[in-house]
């Protein structure tokens, strides 16, 4: 009952009476229970999911069910759902219960999706391995010694292990696509401003974007189309009409660029490199034009990303002060110690490290040298990227420089960890849509993804093109 990758298959079974939503939910709850060792779920909404399933079964019977009836979805623990706890995997928000639902959650519920629980992640979505969580690390279902990636590691692991049909994550520098690559799932980051961020716990507001994980393009498309579009509660969302993804496969030859230097870098695993070059040859054989181009700004992407996102994070996370909500230190005895002790005890080490870096790049005397320059460099990257899309339809790269690494691998140098994001941050710096497709497996049977990015608001074309490689 839980094995279907597409909603079409689920709905066929519901229709012909093979099983009901209520029975399917029981099967999922059992599977979640069995896979507790993954640490993917922070909380399972068993009671809620059961009662919603009964309601939806009745709606199906009467022909009044929404288009997502039968879809079972998990939420990253930084997307709020009215009356439910949400913590961004931080001690800071332990016990916090949301007073409203994120716009994306409202839209999924309106179409009768079932929310089955909230999923582990890196604290405040800061991390690439899901090791920086208040609830402990998530394991990769394909190899329990490996990380699932981060920061949306719980979302990726839950979808890969079949604990739900799909999950929502957030992507600030690759936090959907990198874990998708490590777990053999599809992960999609829409254009900045295509999907409302209302109800997403903010990390870096000019980079954050909500997007789906699934095991089929069909489910990715359905979720994307349901969530996208204008929202009264987020005025950075585009007023442009949402184009639906054409259902038919389109094999017409396209123009695809890749960054030459990115593929010759020493940071990239040999097998990833070989697979990418083979894939490029394959695309050419199918009639596509694939061109290696110069992108002289490549080495500046991760530095730009870290300056701007830590600056935005230091400002966004200033709201956690121990006064109105969230953690307050028991040792607080006056106003300043309420702030300092609550924040010091409530935040984890990586979050504090980034707040401090963000405070530094925004501080008087350094503002222009770091923050100001990074904003200008962001313009250069954006202009250069727009110029590429005048000539090419898509930009191609591996999603990650290697497959999943060991949970036990300790990195003493934070900048090494930051290089994990080398291929993914480009889409967040420029706001373009980007998808990771699970096309490869290395000699150790670990998956890694191929990433395609398109020009802003070209999601329909991008997801339609992806059909050439994923047949469901």
């Amino acid at each position, binding site marked *: 009952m839980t094995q279907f990758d597409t909603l079409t298959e689920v709905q066929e079974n519901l229709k012909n009476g093979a099983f009901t939503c209520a029975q399917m939910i029981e099967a999922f709850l059992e599977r979640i229970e069995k896979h507790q060792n993954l640490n993917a779920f922070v909380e399972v909404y068993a009671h809620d999911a059961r009662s919603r399933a009964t309601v939806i079964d009745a709606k199906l019977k009467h022909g009044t069910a929404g288009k997502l009836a039968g879809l079972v979805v998990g939420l990253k623990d930084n997307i709020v759902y009215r009356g439910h706890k949400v913590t961004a995997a931080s001690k800071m928000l332990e*016990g916090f*219960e949301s*007073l409203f639902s994120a716009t994306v959650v409202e839209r999924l519920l309106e179409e009768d999706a079932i929310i089955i629980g909230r999923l582990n992640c890196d604290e405040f979505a800061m991390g690439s391995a899901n090791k920086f969580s208040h609830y402990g690390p998530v394991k990769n279902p394909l190899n329990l010694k490996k990380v699932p990636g981060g920061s949306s590691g719980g979302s990726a692991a839950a979808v890969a292990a079949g604990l739900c049909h799909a999950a929502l994550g957030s992507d600030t520098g690759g936090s959907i696509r990198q874990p998708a690559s490590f777990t053999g799932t599809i992960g999609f980051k829409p254009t*900045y*401003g295509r999907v409302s961020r209302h109800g997403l716990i903010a990390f870096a507001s*000019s980079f954050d974007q909500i997007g789906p994980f699934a095991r089929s393009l069909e489910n990715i498309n359905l979720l994307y189309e349901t969530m996208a579009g204008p929202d009264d509660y987020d*005025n*950075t*969302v*585009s*007023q442009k009409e949402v184009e639906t993804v054409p259902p038919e496969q389109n094999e017409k030859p396209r123009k695809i660029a890749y960054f030459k230097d990115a593929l010759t870098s020493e940071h990239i695993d040999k097998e990833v490199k070989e697979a990418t070059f083979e894939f490029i040859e394959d695309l050419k054989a199918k009639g596509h034009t694939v061109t290696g181009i110069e992108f002289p700004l490549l*080495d*500046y992407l*991760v*530095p730009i990303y*870290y*300056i701007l996102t830590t600056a935005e994070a*230091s400002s966004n996370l200033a709201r956690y002060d*121990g*006064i*109105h*909500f*969230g*953690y*307050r230190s028991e040792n*607080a005895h*006056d*106003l*300043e*110690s*309420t*702030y*300092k002790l609550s*924040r*010091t005890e409530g*935040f984890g080490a990586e979050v*504090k*490290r980034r*707040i*401090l*870096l963000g*405070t*530094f790049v925004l*501080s008087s005397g350094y503002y222009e*040298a*770091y923050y*100001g*320059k*990074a*904003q*200008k*460099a*962001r*313009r*250069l990257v*954006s202009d250069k990227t727009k110029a590429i899309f005048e000539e090419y339809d898509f930009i191609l790269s591996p999603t990650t420089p290697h497959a999943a690494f060991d949970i036990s691998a300790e990195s003493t140098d*934070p*900048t090494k960890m*930051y290089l994990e994001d080398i291929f993914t941050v480009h889409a967040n710096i420029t*706001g373009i849509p980007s998808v990771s497709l699970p096309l490869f497996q290395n000699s150790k049977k670990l998956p890694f993804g191929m990433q395609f990015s398109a020009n802003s608001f070209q999601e329909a074309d991008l997801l339609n093109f992806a059909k050439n490689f994923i047949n469901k």
Partner: protein
Amino acid sequence: MKLSKEEVDKLAHLARLDFSEAEKEAIVNDMDKILGFVDKINELDLEGVEPLIYLSEERNVLRKDEAQDLVTKDEALKNAPDRDTDFFRVPKVLKREEE
């Protein structure tokens, strides 16, 4: 760039965070590595480049300014670390001068 311990203290205060002496030492080393890494952007010629601040191309997206009661008082107080029936409670902000 190596930050001094005094600079780390100043930043920690600005961010309303406290660090132990051992943590401060680790921070000085981490920041040295991170700043060495991000200093790379100084190689770029950014003369005359407009900063990119907002990614959204939307302008003046307005809605009617209508009051809505979205949150009740009880709801607003619900997640407070300390409260009474009407107010958030905080430790004393002003103190009587000690004798």
